[in-house]
C-alpha cells in the first residue's frame, strides 16, 4: 500500500529534482565563463593595494588555491559545493555564506516590494486603461507608462535622489538604515521602510509600465471573447463582469511575465542597489565581478538559480489556480 501523495506536492518535488542537473550545469558553465575573464582576485587585490612584490603575490595565489589549473579548481569547487560549502570570500575575508545571508534579505525585500508595487499598480492601471480604451484617461496612463519604460533606472534613481533628498530633504540618499541611530522595534521597521521608498519606486516604475501595457492589451482581448458576451447577456455588469470574468482570465499572460521577470528584477537591482548603496545581492554581484571574487560570485549564481527555479514552480502552481483547465502533470 502506498501513501497517497497529493498531486501538487508530487509535481513540486519532481520539478525540484529536475532542477538539480540544471543548476549543476549552470554552476560549471558560470565557473568556466568567469575564468575566461582576464586576471583573478589576486590581481584585483594588488590593484587595490597599489602594488605588491612578487613573493607576496605568489604567496596569496597559493593561499587562495589559484596556482592550480582551472580544472583542478573547478573540481575542488564542485566538491565543496556538493557539501553545501560555498567557500571563503577573499575580498570580504568572510565565509561566502555569511556574506550572502547578510545581504539576501535586503535584496528580497527590494524585489518583492518593487514587484508587488509594479504588479498591483500595473494591473489596476492597465485594467482602467482598457475599460476606457482610447479615452483621455487611457492616453494619459499609456503615455506615462511609456515615459517610465523609456527612462533608464540609473537616471530615474538619481532624479529621485536629487528631488527628494537633496532639494526637499524628505528621504535619505541611500543605505538601508540610518547609521549610528541604533533604532529598534517599529522605529527600525519605519526607518528601513523610509530607506526603501526611492529604490522601490525606481525599480518598480519600469516594470509597472510592462504590466500595465500587457494588462491593457490582455483585457481588451478578453473583453471581446464569447464568454464575456454571455456573462453580459445573463446580466453580469460593471464590477462583477470586470473582476470575476475579465480580469481573472486576462491575468494569465501577466503572471507568466511576473514569473519570468523575477530573474530580470534580480539583474535590475544591480544598478538600483549600487546607486542607493543598498547592501544587497545585486551590488555584491557587481563588486564581485570587478574584484574577481569567484567564490562569492558563484554563491550568488547558485542562490539566484535556486530562486528562479522556485519562482518558476510557483508560477506554474498559480496558473493552475487561475485557470482550472491547466493540469499539473
Amino acid at each position, binding site marked *: 500500500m502506498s501513501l497517497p501523495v497529493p498531486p501538487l506536492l508530487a509535481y513540486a518535488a519532481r520539478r525540484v529534482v529536475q532542477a538539480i542537473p540544471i543548476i549543476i550545469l549552470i554552476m560549471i558553465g558560470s565557473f568556466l565563463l568567469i575564468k575566461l575573464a582576464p586576471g583573478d582576485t589576486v590581481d*584585483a587585490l594588488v590593484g587595490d593595494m*597599489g*602594488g605588491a*612584490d612578487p613573493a*607576496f*603575490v605568489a604567496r596569496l595565489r597559493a593561499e587562495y588555491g589559484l596556482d592550480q589549473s582551472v580544472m583542478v579548481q573547478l573540481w575542488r569547487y564542485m566538491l565543496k559545493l556538493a557539501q553545501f560549502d560555498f567557500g571563503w570570500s577573499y575580498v570580504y575575508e568572510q565565509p561566502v555564506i555569511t556574506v550572502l545571508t547578510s545581504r539576501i534579505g535586503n535584496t528580497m525585500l527590494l524585489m518583492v516590494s518593487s514587484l508587488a508595487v509594479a504588479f498591483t499598480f500595473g494591473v489596476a492601471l492597465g485594467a482602467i486603461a482598457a475599460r476606457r480604451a482610447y479615452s483621455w484617461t487611457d492616453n494619459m496612463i499609456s503615455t506615462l507608462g511609456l515615459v517610465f519604460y523609456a527612462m533608464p533606472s540609473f537616471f530615474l534613481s538619481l532624479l529621485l535622489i536629487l528631488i527628494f533628498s537633496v532639494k526637499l530633504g524628505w528621504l535619505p540618499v541611500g*543605505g538601508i538604515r540610518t*547609521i549610528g541611530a541604533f533604532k529598534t522595534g517599529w522605529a527600525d521597521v519605519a526607518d528601513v521602510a523610509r530607506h526603501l521608498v526611492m529604490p522601490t519606486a525606481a525599480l518598480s516604475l519600469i516594470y509597472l509600465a510592462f504590466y500595465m501595457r500587457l494588462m491593457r492589451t490582455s483585457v481588451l482581448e478578453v473583453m471581446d471573447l464569447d464568454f464575456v458576451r454571455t456573462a453580459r447577456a445573463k446580466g453580469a455588469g460593471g464590477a462583477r463582469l470586470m473582476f470575476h470574468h475579465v480580469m481573472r482570465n486576462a491575468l494569465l499572460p501577466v503572471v507568466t511575465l511576473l514569473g519570468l521577470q523575477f530573474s530580470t528584477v534580480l539583474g535590475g537591482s544591480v544598478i538600483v542597489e549600487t546607486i542607493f548603496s543598498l547592501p544587497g545581492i545585486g551590488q555584491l554581484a557587481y563588486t564581485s565581478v570587478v574584484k574577481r571574487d569567484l567564490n562569492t560570485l558563484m554563491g550568488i549564481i547558485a542562490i539566484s538559480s535556486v530562486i528562479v527555479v522556485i519562482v518558476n514552480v510557483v508560477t506554474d502552481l498559480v496558473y493552475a489556480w487561475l485557470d482550472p483547465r491547466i493540469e499539473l502533470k
Partner: protein
Amino acid sequence: MRGMRGRLLLLGGALCVIAATAHAEDVKRGGTAVIHMVSEQGVLNPALRASTGVYQISGKIIEPLIDKTYDGYVGVLATEWSSSPDGKAITFKLREGVKWHDGKPFSCDDVAFTAMNLWKKLLNYSTTLQANLEAVDCPTPYTAVFRYSKPMPLELLVAAMPDLGHPVPKHLYEGTDILKNPYNQKPVGTGPFKFVEYKRGEYIIAERNKDYWRGKQYPYLDRVIWRFIPDKAAAAAALEAGEIHESGFNGISMEDMVRLSKDPRFDFGSKGFENNVAHSTVEFNLRNPILADLRVRQAIYHALDIDFALKTIMRGHGKPGRGPIPSAGGANYTDNVPTYPFDLDKAKALLDEAGFKPDANGIRFKLRHRPAPWGEYTQLWAEYFAQAMKKVGIQVELVTNDAPGFLNGVYRDHDFDTANGWHQFRADPAVSTTVWLRSGAPVGTAWSNQFGYKSDKMDNLIDAAAAELDPAKRADLYHQIQKLEMTDLPVIFAIEHPFLAITSKKLRNHHNTPRWESSSWYDLWLDQ
C-alpha cells in the same frame, strides 16, 4: 620709537594669548563624523595591507611609530630614533605608558613581533624594504633595535614608517594564523578611536578611546563612521544632503567637485594630500621596434600639450612632471632635468627623422593603448593621449579593461604598445618608485618594469642609492636617476597631481597634515 616697538610686541603677545584661548574655547567636543568610502576593505590591518584605502580607516585605530606632519617627521609610538655609524642597527625609543584598546600595555615586544612576522614577511612593499632585517632586539621594554645585514639608510626607514610602520598587539597575533586572524577585521590598536563594528557593504563605526595617551581631552569626536557609497553621483548627493561630511581621494566626480566647491558649505582642495602625490603617465612597450626608437618617444612627449590636459582634466590641480620623483619628494627631487615642451613641428620632424613618414591618410603608425581603470583622470588622460597623437599622425586604439585585465595585459602578457596609469609616490623613492625602473623583477609583478627597459647604468644607480647612508650623496644619486629617466624615457611622467577632497565646513582641523586621510584625527572636531 622704542616704546612703540615694545607696545607692538606686547600687543602681539596679547593677541597670541587671545588666539590661543579662543582656539581652546572654540573646540566643541562630541559628535559623529561621517566619511565617504568608495570601496570595501576586506583587511583592516595596516601591517598586512599597505594601501591608502586601509589607512583611511585603520589610521584612526592603529598608530604608526612615526607620522609625517607639516613640521616633518614626528614620533607617535616612537619618541626618538637613531642609527649606528655603519647603518646596520637602527634604534627606536618607544613611548611609555601607552595601552592597547584591550588594556594591555604596548611595548617593544609588540614592535619586534610585528616587524619580524608581518613587516618582513607579509606586508606588501615592506617585504622588500625589510628584506635585510635580521632581528629586532629589546634591550629594555621601550627600546627597539632593528638589526640589518646590509646598511639601511635611516632617512629611508623613517620616511617609510608612517605607511609601513604600524605595530599590532603581539598577544592577539602570536601563535595564530596571522592571515586568518579575526583581528584583521576588527583591529585593536592604540589610536584615538576604538573599532566597534564593520557592517559589510554599509559602514564601519569606531568610537572614542577614553584612555588615549595624548590626554583626556583627545579625541574631540565621539565617533567616526565610514559609509560605503560606490556610486560617485550618489555620494555627491549625500554630501549635499548633509549625510556625509567628507569625501577624499577624488571620491566624487570632478564635475560634482567643482560644483560643490562653489557651495559655501564646503571646503575643497588638495591640502592634506601632499604625501599622496601620483603621476599620470604614458608607458611605452620597448619590445615594439617603433617605440624602441628614442626619437619616437621624444616625439610623443613633444606632441603632448601638458598644460592643456592639466587645465581640462585636473582642472588645474597638478603640475607638469619632471621624472620619477615628484616635487613632494623633498631633497631627492630636482627639476634640473631634460624637458620636452609642447611642439608639434618638432614632434613631426623627429618622427620623420626616425623614418616614420605619414601615408596617404596622414597616418604614420598605429598603437594599441591600454588605459588603467583607476578612475576619471586615467580615463580622460587616455582619451586626450589618443587625440594628441592623432595630430602628429599616430593612430591610437584604446583597449579598455578593468583592473585585473589591465594588470595582466600590461604586466604579465606585455600585450600593449602604450599604456597609461598612475604611479603613486610613497614618501621615499626606494619604497616603490625605483622598483618600476629597475630591471630583473619577475614577469607579472604589478608596478614593476613592464617597459622592457634595461639599463645597467640605471640599475647601478638604483642599487647605490638604496644603500647610501649619507643623505646628501643619496639625494645626488636620485637626481641622477631622474635625469637618466628623462633622457631614456621608458615612461613619460607627464603630470604630477595630488588627490582632491571635498569637506563640509562643519569639520574643523581637517586636512592639517600631509597625509591627513591616513592620520589619526585625534584633533578633528565637529562644529554643530
